[in-house]
């Protein structure tokens, strides 16, 4: 425990636990298989293995294709203390959720739209199999990329032929990454991810927009709009106004530490303000279980807490890795993948220096993570 924490006015651990405990009544799983309308919650049995650090644990959530409204489905992939091993067999990090993302499905009279394509062949194929049961075999006519990261775009090839849609920036970035793949490269064999035979193929968007796009799937209105820069410089979300459902892509993280490694922290807060002002009942995050505005607000809170703390340490000349290790993120310390704080501090520092661009300096970020992990390990040991 760093004395610097108290002197900078951060919550004591006791205060942090007290505050977070109230929020744990919120749930990760919902009543009924065909939940329609406002989402109701029931308390989830907390994992028996409480954190050895005494931090409140986050809930766990399972993989499922969940109906949110007629013709509207969320596909959530498992995570949390009891769920993460479905995908990540040995975790180096707390409840590792890395690249385990969510998707969305909207079914129209003749075809279906997919929001995000997941990060691995077996993820995509499992989703497609589950989707086919509810689409009755209607073709996927459209795949929307919420942003360019591989855990949302690697699976696109398995939905072809379909129109791929994204923001201009996302398309450019995916196209550049696609061009860098040596033909014949395969996904490495990995249990629950890839069987080792699938070619690495990235399909960039052929249709792009820069602000808003509306699709009418039968009676279901689907509005895509750009909210970047936030998690990246090409973030789009999908909003269904009739059902007040938001597919947030990686602009929203529930119980998974938000990552801004190629995004813009301050503008992300503004994006959250915009979304929180909207009429939304159900939120499908890019990572984590379904939630409501309450969970969505926590993404904003994460950065709202971190920004001022980052600034203090920047001004004091602390390296980003050390600063990340030094900042007590309160209840967020119990979320998965907390070491992302190191990436996030690198981006805050770029903002403070006035040098932030869409590109992320991978070397600097790697070093920051190493420093963070070393300092946090030392603290525990």
């Amino acid at each position, binding site marked *: 425990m760093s004395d610097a924490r108290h002197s900078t006015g951060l919550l004591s651990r006791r205060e942090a636990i007290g505050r977070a405990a109230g929020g744990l009544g919120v749930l990760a799983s919902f009543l009924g298989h065909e939940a329609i309308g406002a989402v109701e919650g029931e308390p989830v049995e907390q994992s028996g293995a409480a954190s050895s650090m005494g931090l409140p644990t986050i809930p766990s959530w399972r993989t499922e294709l969940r109906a949110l409204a007629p013709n509207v489905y969320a596909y959530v992939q498992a995570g949390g203390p009891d769920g993460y091993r479905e995908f990540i067999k040995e975790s180096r990090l707390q409840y590792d959720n890395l690249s385990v993302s969510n998707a969305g499905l909207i079914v129209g009279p003749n075809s279906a739209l997919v929001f995000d394509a997941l990060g691995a062949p077996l993820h995509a194929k499992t989703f497609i199999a589950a989707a086919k049961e509810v689409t009755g075999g209607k073709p996927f006519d459209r795949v929307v990329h919420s942003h360019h990261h591989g855990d949302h775009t690697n699976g696109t090839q398995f939905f072809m*032929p379909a129109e791929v849609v994204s923001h201009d920036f996302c398309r450019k970035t995916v196209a550049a990454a696609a061009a860098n793949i040596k033909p014949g490269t395969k996904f490495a064999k990995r249990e629950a991810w890839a069987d080792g035979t699938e070619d690495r193929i990235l399909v960039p968007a052929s249709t*792009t*927009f820069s*602000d*808003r*796009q*509306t*699709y*009418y799937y039968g009676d279901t209105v689907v509005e895509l709009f750009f909210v970047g820069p936030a998690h990246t410089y090409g973030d789009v979300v999908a909003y269904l106004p009739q059902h007040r459902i938001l597919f947030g892509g990686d602009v929203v993280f529930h119980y998974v530490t938000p990552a801004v490694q190629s995004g813009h922290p301050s503008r992300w807060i503004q994006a959250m303000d915009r979304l929180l002002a909207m009429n939304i009942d159900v939120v499908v995050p890019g990572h984590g279980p379904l939630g409501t505005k309450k969970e969505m607000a926590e993404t904003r809170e994460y950065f709202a807490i971190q920004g001022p703390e980052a600034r203090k340490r920047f001004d004091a000349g602390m390296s980003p890795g050390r600063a990340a290790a030094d900042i007590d993120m309160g209840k967020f310390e119990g979320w998965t993948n907390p070491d992302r704080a190191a990436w996030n501090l690198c981006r805050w520092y770029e903002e403070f220096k006035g040098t932030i661009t869409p590109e992320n300096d991978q070397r600097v970020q790697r070093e920051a993570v190493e420093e963070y992990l070393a300092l946090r390990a030392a603290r525990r040991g």
Partner: protein
Amino acid sequence: MKKRGVLGTAASMTRRDALRLGGGAGLGLVAALGVPVSLVDAEAQAPSPAAGRRPSIPSWKTELRQLAPGVYAYVQAGGPEMYRTFIPESLNQFDNGSVSNAGVVVGERDLLAIDALAAPLHAKAFIAAATNATGKTFGRLVNTHHHGDHTNGNQFFLPAEIVSHEFCREEVLRAIASREPGATFGKREFWADGTEVRVAAPPVTTFPNKISYLYGSTVVELLFLGIGHTWGDIVAYLPQHRILFAGDLTFNLVTPSVHNGHTTKWIEVLDTIMAMDVDTIVPGHGPIHGKKEVAVLRDYFVILKREARKRFDVGMSIGRAAADIDMGMYEVWTNPERNVRNVLRLYDEFNDTIVPAFDSARNNVALEEYRTLRAPSSGRTR
């Protein structure tokens, strides 16, 4: 040349009579109610190539013309020699009414259509021509705006995805709602055989400003450039080929119609087009053109607005104003009676009462007055 089909009625008076009633000739003369009957003076108000005789416009034929690899314009015939291809008896000088143009962009799997034309026989001929030329079928249709001469053919492109500006979709839905279920296209030679049932085919994808598609390696940008011919016009711009499918934002040799539009804002849109990197423009009506014709269209609006303003300021009625304004070279364009509705829309701008909807009733009153004043017996021939 003699105007065709202008209604002459017993109530018409010669211009000479009208002037005498007003007590004089020339600028600013005043009739009984203090309103001038004419502001025409010796000076022509719009450029006139030769005193007393105006050369006719050229004619153009129906054709699917390739503009670039994978890019075609579909122009429907018009002008003095060709207008009868669609309108055997012209009511309105080489009537071009609802005889519109379209476009095609070829993709790897299917085609993009720009606009769907006004009638079953037009749409079917276009689709057949495009399929013959490319061996592919339409997967997507863009409506440049909601008017029937660009959207009535939508149903013949289904199951293609139909894309438009947000405003356009709303207007198409409104038109669909006003139709009787099971209505058919009225039988009309060269337009419909009378058996085709109208099927609702509104846009299912909309956007407010810009969307970009990739057809093969050809970029097609759909852009909203501002209010102009309607409140929801979009153009299809192909930057690599410097081609613009302008929809009804440009008219070439055909009098433009502002009935659902806004003249001043339309001029601004034309300025935007003039500043774009464009060589070839496919208009909503008339033959394919370039930036020169955009400037000509802009001048039409600038001159009409200037002349309408003068007459508005002295309280002249719309019909009389439209009859009184000599639009010079533009008088030989097709469908010149549109000047009436265009003056009406300008008056609404001047009154600050302009809205997207068109007041047909008011226009009909003005059109009556215009026709009376322009009747051959009135002495004003064109």
